[in-house]
């Protein structure tokens, strides 16, 4: 029975048509993921009706390809322009962009690619072989445990930068405040909108993300270019960059195996955390990437280099976000619960094909699901092959002079932001977030805690208030679960130890 289904699945998964669809999907995903504002999820949503017209294996192949390509594509713009192409790659931007500024975009992109593929493949195997046990663990996460997890991640990231802990905490708080604009998740009333009805739904993630990172960068670059022009009038001897690429030397920018091996610890941390967090319904890839990044810095021998272009930082963040991609389907396969936006879209695709997500799925549609498992694995190889071929090109694009590149990126960002929600308000939010980003950069505030605060705040607030409702308003209810106590204790121990260790080093 198993062998027969498996052989049938092999035929399905490796038919030339399906392989072609996977490759097209990966290509689309990489391209869309690389455009700030657009993401693989959006493309999946738009292409959903295709399941009416394609065979199930081909349709799932296309969607899987888009998803995986999009996961990696986000890191291309994060590294090249400092603009996370997708929310999941926000943590990648921290070190990836610094590496590019140092003239090593190719090293950073390759690190991102390999750690992504490693994280993703591991996560797919966990989905295939450990879905049920992990799903049962995931269900033990209720509001109390989730709040502890969110608190843990906020502490970890706020205390990321040495000497800037106060600024980090302030930024996390600002992120939480921005996320509270809109509808109160428990009472349903509108708050902090200052009478502007368009803000009733809150600020959307994509415009805030792209604004803080991309628009602020553009404004600063613009200011710098004007400063330089003004200086040039006085002193005309300024050296003209001769080619489009300035003085970028691609031959010095190759990732060696030794360099990649040095990121091994970071990649493993990212893979483990990403797989675990991905399996929790509602936690998401950006949280996984930030937690992986924070932990990798804590456990790195060269933690001081984080934030300054560390390849380990890139590896941890990318392995972390990509490792959610297989495990995010676990709650869907085990219980029919969509744990993320992507899982919800895959669930809708299954429903449109007449397959009900849940534990019966694998028994009722054995061949298609086995074929999907095979596709999940080999799509990574296609991603690896295609990206390997394309990365030298992307690295060159990354090094195009910013006065040419940034306006293009910004136009794409504005279009992408508009397209993501069909909303003009989002474009205004984007521009205001850009101005806020400029101010924060000028005063040297770290941006990552703000983004993480903004991302986790809705979940954290809901979890906190649900816990208090369930616990009849008793705050001690927050300590009623061993998992929660464990998370708080780990956070406390880590902060105390690392503060102590860092002080000794000085």
């Amino acid at each position, binding site marked *: 029975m198993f062998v027969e289904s498996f052989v049938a699945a092999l035929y399905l998964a490796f038919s030339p048509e399906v392989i072609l669809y996977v490759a097209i999907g990966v290509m689309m995903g990489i391209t869309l993921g690389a455009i700030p504002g657009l993401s693989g999820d959006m493309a999946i*949503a738009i292409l*959903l*009706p295709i399941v*009416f*017209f394609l065979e199930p294996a081909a349709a799932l192949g296309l969607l899987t390809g888009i998803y995986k390509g999009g996961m990696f594509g986000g890191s291309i713009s994060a590294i090249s322009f400092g603009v996370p192409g997708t929310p999941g790659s926000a943590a990648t931007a921290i070190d990836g962009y610094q590496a590019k500024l140092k003239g090593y975009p190719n090293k950073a992109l390759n690190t991102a690619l390999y750690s992504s593929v490693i994280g993703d493949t591991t996560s797919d195997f966990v989905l295939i072989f450990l879905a049920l046990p992990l799903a049962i663990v*995931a*269900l*033990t*996460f*209720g*509001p*109390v445990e989730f709040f502890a997890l969110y608190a843990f991640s906020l502490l970890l990231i706020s205390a990321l930068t040495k000497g800037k802990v106060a600024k980090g905490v302030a930024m996390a708080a600002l992120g939480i405040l921005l996320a509270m604009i*809109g*509808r109160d*998740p*428990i*009472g*349903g009333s*509108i708050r902090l909108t200052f009478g502007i*009805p*368009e*803000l*009733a*739904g809150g600020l*959307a993630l994509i415009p805030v993300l792209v604004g803080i990172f991309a628009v602020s960068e553009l404004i600063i670059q613009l200011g710098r270019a004007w400063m330089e022009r003004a200086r040039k009038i006085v002193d005309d001897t300024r050296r003209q960059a001769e080619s489009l690429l300035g003085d970028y030397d691609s031959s010095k920018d190759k990732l060696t195996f030794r360099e990649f091996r040095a990121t091994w610890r970071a990649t493993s941390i990212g893979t483990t955390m990403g797989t675990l967090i991905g399996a929790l*319904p*509602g936690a998401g890839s950006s949280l996984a990437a930030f937690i992986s990044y924070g932990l990798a810095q804590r456990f790195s021998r060269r933690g001081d280099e984080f934030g300054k272009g560390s390849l380990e930082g890139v590896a941890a963040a990318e392995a972390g976000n990509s490792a959610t991609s297989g495990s995010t389907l676990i*709650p869907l396969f085990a*219980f*029919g*619960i*969509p*744990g993320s*936006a992507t899982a*919800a*879209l895959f*669930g*809708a695709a299954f*429903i*449109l*094909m*007449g397959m*009900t997500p*849940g*534990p*019966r799925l694998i028994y009722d549609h054995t061949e298609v699901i086995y074929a999907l498992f095979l596709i999940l694995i080999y799509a990574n190889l296609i991603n690896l092959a295609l990206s390997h071929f394309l990365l030298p090109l992307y690295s060159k694009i990354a090094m195009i002079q910013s006065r040419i590149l940034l306006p293009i990126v910004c136009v794409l960002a504005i279009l992408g932001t508009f397209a993501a*929600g*069909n*909303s003009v*308000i*989002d474009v205004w939010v984007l521009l205001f977030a850009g101005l806020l980003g400029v101010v924060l950069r000028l005063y040297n505030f770290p941006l990552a805690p703000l983004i993480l605060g903004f991302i986790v705040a*809705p*979940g954290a607030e*809901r979890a906190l208030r*649900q816990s208090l*409702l*369930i616990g*009849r308003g008793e705050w001690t209810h927050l300590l009623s679960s061993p998992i929660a106590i464990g998370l708080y204790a780990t956070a406390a121990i880590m902060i105390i130890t690392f503060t102590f260790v860092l002080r000794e080093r000085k």
Partner: protein
Amino acid sequence: MFLSKTTRKGTAATAVAAMMAIAPTLGAASPLGTDPIRLVIPFGPGGGSDITARVLAATAPEFCGPRIDVVSMSGAAGLEAVNFVRNATPNGHTLLVTDYGPIVTSGYVDDVDWSHDDWQPVMNFTEWLPVVYTRPDHAIQTIEDWVAAAEANPDTITFGHASPLGLVHLPLILFEMETGLRNVHVPTSGGGETRSLVMGGHIDLGMTLPPSIASEVASGELTALGVFSQERSPILPDTPTFVESGYDVVLPAWLMIFATSDVPAETVAFLQDCFMEALASPTAVAMSNRVNAGIEPLNAADSTALYQATVASIGGILRDIGEID
């Protein structure tokens, strides 16, 4: 492209032949021209409204003339979609597909510049019947268990539901008004979160719509206590209604297509006819069954009656709980 692919799959060859015969005559008579029709939904993609609207978008072009796109606008808690349709040219090309939340409830509680009379129903897709459920190893397994437990210990039973005052919350409020029982209301981010909290043992009861739990109820992984409707849900035939247990609490949730009231009556009539014809086609019926959408279309007149009844009953509930004066 759609025609050839469908034929290739051989699902509805006869329907396609019939469509081809009708299409040219309709195309000439269509008052809609060739610009696409947009079905705007105030929710994110992938949910029940999206899936149901896509069945229509895939089948109706042959009957109505132009292409049909499903556009998802979940901004401003759905009000952005409502305002977008409200401000579009009133020519029948921009329609709203929604349940009563963003249009009836929002019309009462939110600060909007339109009233309920500014909308006219074109057609109703289906009626969703809110259902209360729990895990099979929970002490509460029937409506009677729930009532007894809530009477013995008021304010202890935790009840998960999606956004406050939404489709799967108002029935609970109505039930509590009817019985005087009190539960702890725990809002969640949606059906998925409610279900993981119920299954993980974090809360006692949850409310959702039948298609999302039908297969788990059939396999015994979840227990459905009761449905807030006049008659039993065809998807959950073994689950009693609250009416059967003696509680007159009925609050089904429809999914309706709306035009603004300034769209000409003949355009609305044309849309109603071609949508109903499309949904009666064998292809649409096959698709609807496959996705468990339970589509049972109502024409514009019946939909209007249903809409006005809902506006009245929800207004009553909101007044009773003090949300509006």
